[in-house]
């Protein structure tokens, strides 16, 4: 395990950033923080990724944040494992934590229940409550995007109320339509493209989360906050027609 002191200019100075680095095959490695004190791991990983990306070492090919680690892809023709881990440990030592800038939450309109949310009634039954109460709780929350993964533009959201935690479906669906909003265990999320999936589907958004031909292909970025707002079926159709 490598130890590195925090940068004195950091607002969180004094915290010792324990981390470990392990190879992930011969062209990538995983950097995992062991202890980040009071700093959220997603903030720690986001800031480290940004600060390495601003000044990338030779041979760095890609940085991929996970929920609790950063994967670094490299080209062994242009760097060595030793020089890269040395660089990364120095970057951890110089890490400055900048809290995610607080913006207005991104609004995700959702038409809940019916054909768009075929599992809403079942989720309500699981929690011995009504579909309306599920929708009220789901729309009352503020969610933070921790990372994107699984599918292009798929957000891993933090912030689902514990009263909505619901096990995944016993048999995954072969085809979950793009825009579907679901609950899987302690997470909630939105399917950016049509795909197989095992989450409980409670609604659908007309917003396009991923479009490879847009300047910013993914609607959401780690650190974003978002809020779900319930809309009627007619509003869903109007939104789709407009876009």
């Amino acid at each position: 395990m490598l130890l590195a002191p925090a940068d004195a200019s950091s607002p969180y100075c004094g915290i010792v950033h324990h981390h470990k680095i392990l190879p992930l095959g011969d062209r990538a490695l995983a950097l995992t923080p062991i202890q980040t004190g009071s700093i959220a791991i997603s903030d720690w990983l986001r800031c480290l990724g940004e600060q390495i990306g601003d000044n990338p070492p030779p041979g760095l090919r890609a940085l991929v944040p996970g929920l609790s680690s950063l994967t670094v892809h490299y080209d062994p023709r242009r760097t060595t494992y030793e020089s890269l881990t040395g660089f990364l440990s120095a970057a951890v030592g110089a890490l400055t934590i900048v809290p995610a800038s607080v913006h207005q939450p991104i609004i995700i309109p959702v038409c809940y229940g019916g054909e768009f949310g075929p599992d809403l009634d079942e989720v309500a039954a699981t929690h011995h409550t009504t579909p309306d109460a599920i929708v009220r709780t789901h729309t009352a929350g503020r969610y933070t995007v921790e990372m994107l993964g699984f599918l292009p533009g798929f957000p891993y959201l933090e912030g689902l109320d514990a009263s909505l935690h619901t096990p995944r479906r016993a048999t995954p669906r072969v085809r979950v339509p793009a825009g579907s909003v679901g609950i899987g265990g302690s997470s909630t999320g939105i399917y950016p493209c049509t795909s197989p999936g095992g989450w409980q589907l409670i609604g659908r958004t007309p917003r396009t989360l991923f479009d490879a031909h847009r300047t910013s292909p993914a609607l959401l970025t780690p650190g974003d906050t978002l809020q779900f707002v319930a809309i009627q079926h007619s509003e869903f159709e109007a939104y789709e027609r407009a876009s």
Partner: protein
Amino acid sequence: MSITVRQAGIQTTVQDLGRINWQHLGIPMGGAMDEQAHRVANLLVGNEANAAALECALGGVALQFNVPALVALAGRDISASLDGAALPPWHTVRIPAGALLVLHNGCRTTIAVAGGIDVPVVLDSRSTCLRAGFGGMSGRALLRDDRIGIGAPSPLATHIHDSLASEQRTVAPWSAGLHVRPAYADQPTVRIIPGPECELLTEASRTHLLNEVFRIAPESDRMGYRLAGPPLSLADAREIRSAGVTAGTVQLPPGGAPIVLMADRQTTGGYPRLGDVIAVDLPLIAQLRASDRLRFAITTLEEAHALFAQREHQLHVAQLAVNLRFGSGRDDAR
């Protein structure tokens, strides 16, 4: 400057070396399954390594060339013909306008064409992303009657073509040497570097992983290969928080049957990572078919990097050889 697809085969897609730097948005890397075959095939037709080529699963592909072209096939167990005459893989082949190239059989065959397959670049790559439906040929596998564009051949490709034409040859009298071809085998032993969660395996499962034979299950594709063999189990069945994976990551889902992630893998995964297949052995897996078998062996990062450097050196020497022979003295293909 185009090719007409007469028969599309089971799954033929446009691939280059993929889009590695978009994974932070959850976008799969994609690209050629057998990177080495892709690079060698491009080298044989005077292309850059990253030029887009066709990747064909198994056989049943027929392509009609509407213009004269320079083509190379690379992969394992390839059976192909040009207007009915047998066509050897790993050779540069000059194709006259109107000729019909048929890939009868193969595992995962790269067909490289001088000038590269000309489809729009989406997110830095021409590779097909089947999952999200973009890149390559409209985000899908090729269909019968598709017309595929070809880019402008490099000066190097033109020299090779003219040289073959002046000798009235279809197949070049030289080919990619064995040392630049992957060491394909019917039952390969692929080397892995132990992964972050390898130590969670039980002692017995670790022994199974390294001593037993695994079979490629039918539900295997460009995303990953499911393996059938002795079920593996974890001593400490803890849940892993979604973390980065690579081409070659061996994951262990709760069912106990490992999966080897391949080119179209998700960017992150939540299953324990037992190990990662080393770069030089990935082509061996890429060329396996359903019900083919393999074994795993453990290696070190140092050995993997030494083997990688050796392979890269051999590819570099092969490139120099082509440049020397056809580079018109100005070394313009360097």
